[in-house]
């Protein structure tokens, strides 16, 4: 063992409360008291490790210091990825830091130290919630959550993927909470407080799992911190300050039953900090000694108020080493290097010590595979699967694969370089290639100065750099609200209760697929607006619609509660519909205005408006209604003999349903395409998409016609199948661009009618636990635009949170989680197929493939590839279709192969299909 006290690691003599080594081992952070504020310093590890680096003046020792905390910093912790640093202090704040790459060296303005910061760490989030000093912070395994505890007796769990969202606030301690530790498999978090208790909380429901008080009953006095630690195998939890027979101990708590039978004894004063070595060790095999199979063991460092440090191996009864008088004051924090051989200790006296062990002393650290094997043995398939580490030893078997892997690395590097260059570029040439120096020279002349209304000078500052805080953008699915402008299909609601959330899906259409995007995709939405003005501004109409509609359509529902469906249905209809009519009649002049708002902001298509005016003129006692349509400045209008109930349109057709159960269909230019269709019952919802017209009648039957081919796609199909046996109503209906009708029910289920099978297929179920537990976040590539516009996304809506509950990984066993995700993804794929939504199919196919690749599902992946490749040799009997939804299957396979190549385990599969594809390409 070697021991070093690097004197240059100091906060100018002020106490250092916390130390943490970066996961990559190249730097470490200290936190403590600054001059008049809290201070976080990031130090270079190299000068600690190597004497020649310490002496080399060109190697910086301090990398960055941050004085942003207003008061003493009690804890600094790196995220597991090393991208972020979290710090908590007496100013009640938790700050999350991220390295800013684009800014050159700078000093803290006004600071005495003229040393430039070598690295720039910027505070990206401030987490405000605690009402007292923050004592400890801890990142959960996989950086899903960040926990912080405070003297306000609470623990706050922050969503580390979506700061500053609070996942939970754990209340229950009756004293200052001074230490936190996560279970390495993520199932629990443990906290220790001044209230003589140690509590273990479940991450599944954030409730208390157990409360351990006995070993702490005797504890008197206070220690500044109580940093407890969980062993890397997850089996033991070791507390800080505990007492046994009036001697201070570190209590060992067994995971199994939370038994407290053992402790680390020997320190003369309270234990302030316990820190397990991240590695699990096994006995070093010496040559010649009997190859006795030895149990793996853990290593733990204990620091105390008595200023001494002890290091224990769980295989030994006595400590491996005890170091006295290392410091002048209490030990405050301990951090191990990731390789498990080095340890940094900091003290209230403002100094830091580094200890270096050899493998002879500690033993052979298990590699990640072996550690995972242990985890899997104990907890089932571990969450800590690190595929890369596992595969690092795999040999690349063929040149194609090698080429591919190398290209990938190169691309990554190039990417990396590019971002760096871009960032550097940003710094040097800020405006039109001018350097910062040029700008500075002329700044006074160039800066824009105006006078405010009250005559004061106002300077517009020159922006010289953007902030790069991009990484905290919320998770994909959360960040994509379904805006009124992005709904792909027109929908109408039959149910009155749906005008909050689902009404967002309403009226607009968006290009779906490449074909549709070039067309003027227009869709119209029937709006029942009671207004005296004949024309309305589109936006105004939109606004008022939400309020108006709720008044107008109370309880327009289709319900089939038990009895003979048709009769009851019509009755219910009548109940609802007349009320609407009544409302209309009360108005002196009633108009119906339909508007079409431009589907996508970028599209150049002009909006199309449909406007209907009922009872426009009376010709010999008969009242006529007028339908007016304006598109790209061209208008047409037509007259109808009866009052219009609802109208809808697409880029190709306009359909109007009247009170007399007649449905009229016009071309985009107003030509009548069909004689009026007599419907069996009044129209309830009408949709158009492309040349398809969908009609949902009040007697709960559904029809879809293809106007172009003059054929019925769906013929008077009853909704009884999907409505029977439930108390639910139709809350949403839509027609996809491919003519597939979709019905959403109030119970959260959505069905589409598959016209070839003539069946109703379930495509979305909001209560489906599979949806909520499926975890495929890792499989979403940042390059994929999230599909929020397809019919599938529309019906599933916000519910699809990419595993909202899934991040509570540990709550379900991994294999179950895996299974659920698989089932969910396969459901998505099948649904996208049935809906004939090619973009969504493509999107989910990629995610599915990535998931199979990361999870190593060999058979499924092979089957998928086989299906995509099809028969290599043409045979007459083959029913294989070369395309699906207009996508060429082999092109899809070509797209999937790089994904497959990412996992070396599949290199044979990769090669096999790569070769075959090439062969086919050459033919």
């Amino acid at each position, binding site marked *: 063992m070697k021991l070093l006290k690097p004197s240059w690691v100091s906060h100018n003599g002020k106490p250092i409360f916390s130390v943490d080594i970066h996961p990559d081992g190249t730097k470490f952070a200290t936190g403590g008291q600054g001059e008049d504020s809290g201070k976080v310093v990031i130090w270079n590890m190299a000068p600690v490790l190597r004497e020649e680096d310490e002496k080399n003046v060109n190697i910086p020792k301090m990398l960055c210091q941050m004085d942003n905390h207003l008061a003493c910093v009690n804890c600094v912790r790196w995220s597991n990825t090393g991208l972020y640093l979290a710090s908590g202090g007496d100013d009640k704040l938790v700050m999350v830091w991220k390295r800013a790459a684009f800014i050159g060296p700078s000093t803290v303005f006004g600071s005495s130290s003229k040393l430039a910061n070598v690295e720039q760490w910027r505070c990206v989030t401030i987490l405000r919630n605690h009402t007292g000093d923050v004592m400890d912070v801890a990142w959960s395994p996989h950086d899903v959550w960040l926990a912080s505890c405070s003297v306000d007796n609470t623990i706050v769990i922050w969503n580390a993927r979506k700061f500053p969202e609070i996942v939970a606030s754990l209340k229950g301690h009756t004293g200052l909470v001074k230490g936190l530790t996560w279970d390495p498999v993520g199932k629990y978090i443990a906290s220790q407080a001044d209230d003589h208790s140690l509590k273990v909380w479940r991450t599944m429901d954030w409730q208390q799992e157990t409360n351990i008080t006995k070993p702490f009953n005797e504890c008197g006095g206070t220690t500044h911190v109580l940093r407890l630690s969980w062993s890397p195998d997850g089996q033991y939890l070791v507390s800080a300050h505990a007492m046994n027979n009036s001697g201070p101990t570190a209590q060992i708590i067994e995971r199994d039953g939370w038994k407290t039978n053992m402790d680390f004894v020997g320190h003369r004063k309270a234990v302030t900090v316990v820190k397990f070595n991240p590695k699990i060790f096994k006995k070093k095999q010496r040559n010649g000694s009997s190859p006795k199979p030895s149990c793996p063991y853990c290593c733990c460092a204990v620091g105390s108020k008595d200023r001494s440090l002890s290091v224990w191996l769980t295989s030994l009864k006595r400590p491996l080493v005890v170091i006295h008088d290392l410091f002048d004051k209490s030990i405050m924090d301990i951090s191990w290097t990731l390789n498990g051989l080095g340890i940094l200790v900091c003290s209230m006296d403002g100094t830091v010590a580094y200890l270096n062990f050899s493998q002879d002393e500690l033993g052979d650290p298990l590699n990640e595979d072996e550690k995972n094997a242990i985890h899997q043995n104990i907890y089932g398939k571990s969450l800590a699967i690190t595929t890369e580490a596992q595969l690092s030893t795999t040999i690349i078997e063929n040149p194609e694969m090698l080429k591919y892997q190398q290209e990938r690395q190169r691309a990554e590097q190039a990417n990396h370089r590019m971002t760096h260059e871009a960032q550097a570029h940003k710094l040097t040439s800020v405006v039109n290639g001018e350097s910062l120096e040029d700008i500075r020279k002329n700044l006074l002349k160039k800066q824009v100065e105006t006078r405010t209304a009250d005559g004061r000078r106002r300077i*517009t500052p020159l922006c010289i750099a953007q902030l790069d805080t991009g990484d905290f953008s919320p998770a994909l699915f959360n960040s994509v609200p379904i805006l009124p402008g992005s709904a792909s299909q027109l929908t109408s609601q039959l149910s009155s209760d749906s005008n909050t959330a689902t009404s967002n899906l309403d009226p607009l259409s968006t290009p779906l697929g490449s074909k549709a995007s070039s067309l003027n995709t227009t869709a119209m939405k029937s709006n029942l607006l009671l207004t005296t003005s004949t024309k309305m501004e589109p936006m105004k109409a939109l606004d008022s619609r939400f309020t108006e509609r709720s008044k107008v359509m109370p309880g327009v529902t289709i319900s089939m509660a038990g009895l003979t469906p048709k009769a009851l249905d019509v009755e219910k209809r009548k109940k609802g519909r007349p009320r609407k009519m009544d409302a209309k009649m009360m108005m002196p002049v009633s108009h119906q205005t339909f508007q079409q708002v431009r589907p996508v902001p970028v599209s150049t298509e002009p909006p199309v408006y449909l406007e209907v005016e009922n009872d426009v003129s009376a010709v010999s006692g008969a009242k006529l209604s007028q339908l007016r349509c304006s598109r790209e400045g061209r208008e047409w209008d037509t007259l109808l003999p009866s009052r219009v109930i609802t109208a809808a349109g697409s880029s190709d057709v306009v359909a109007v349903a009247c009170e007399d159960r007649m449905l009229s269909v016009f071309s985009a230019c107003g030509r009548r395409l069909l004689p009026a269709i007599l419907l069996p019952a009044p129209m309830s919802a009408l949709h158009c998409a492309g040349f398809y017209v969908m009609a949902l009648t009040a007697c709960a039957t559904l029809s879809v016609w293809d106007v172009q081919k003059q054929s019925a796609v769906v013929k008077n199909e009853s909704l009884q199948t999907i409505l029977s046996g439930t108390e639910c109503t139709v809350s949403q209906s839509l027609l996809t661009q491919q003519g597939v009708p979709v019905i959403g029910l109030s119970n959260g289920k959505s069905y589409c009618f598959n016209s070839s099978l003539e069946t109703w297929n379930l495509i979305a179920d909001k209560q489906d636990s599979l949806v909520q537990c499926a975890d495929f976040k890792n499989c979403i590539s940042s390059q994929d635009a999230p599909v929020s516009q397809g019919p599938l996304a529309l019906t599933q809506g916000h519910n699809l949170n990419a595993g909202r509950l899934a991040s509570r990984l540990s709550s379900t066993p991994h294999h179950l989680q895996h299974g659920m995700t698989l089932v969910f993804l396969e459901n998505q794929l099948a649904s996208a197929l049935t809906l004939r939504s090619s973009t969504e199919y493509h999107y989910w196919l990629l995610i599915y493939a990535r998931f199979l690749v990361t999870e190593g599902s060999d058979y499924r992946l092979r089957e998928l590839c086989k299906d995509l490749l099809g028969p290599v040799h043409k045979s007459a009997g083959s029913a294989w279709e070369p395309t699906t939804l207009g996508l060429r299957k082999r092109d899809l396979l070509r797209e999937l192969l790089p994904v497959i190549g990412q996992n070396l385990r599949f290199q044979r599969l990769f090669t096999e299909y790569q070769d075959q594809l090439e062969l086919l390409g050459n033919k």
Partner: protein
Amino acid sequence: MAKVQVLNVAVLDNPSPFGNPFQFEITFECMEDLPEDLEWKIIYVGSAESEEYDQTLDSVLVGPVPAGRHMFVFQADAPNTGLIPESDAVGVTVALITCTYNGQEFIRIGYYVNNEYTDPELRENPPIKPDYTQLQRNILASNPRVTRFHINWDGCSDKMEDSENVDPSPNSSSSSSMVPSSCLAGKALPVGLLSGNSMDCL
């Protein structure tokens, strides 16, 4: 934590004749878009004895301020000599740059300013009535004294939370020999509007 961090203040045109305008090039960084403008002020302390001789040379609004790093030059006319006590014209005084957001001051940057005659003759025998045309102003740009205050960034509430006091250079009192420590100590404090905050200038 403050949404606005002052990264650097460069003193331009320094030293310069007394009558030249003050010029500070201020670089600051903003964590998030600010809905309101920042208000910057230059205050010239006319006399160490009393704050009644303080002159606000100018105040400007700076905005809009989106998140990012920004810079601007704050230029303000030289102090009105008529308002400076004759006895205090020559010697060391203080210029302050303050910045407020929503009426709350969150940073105060103090510079020592030394006014002296360039002509050795005049330096030896200064005229009783100061000759401002001959005076040179030298701002001790290398030693800004920065005081930061904790303010409420989200509302315009006048509630002040605890103040943060960053006096960065404990060694500077020895380094700046030109500081007449007796007269300036505590002087800077009453200049400000915020009596609740302290700025131990020295």
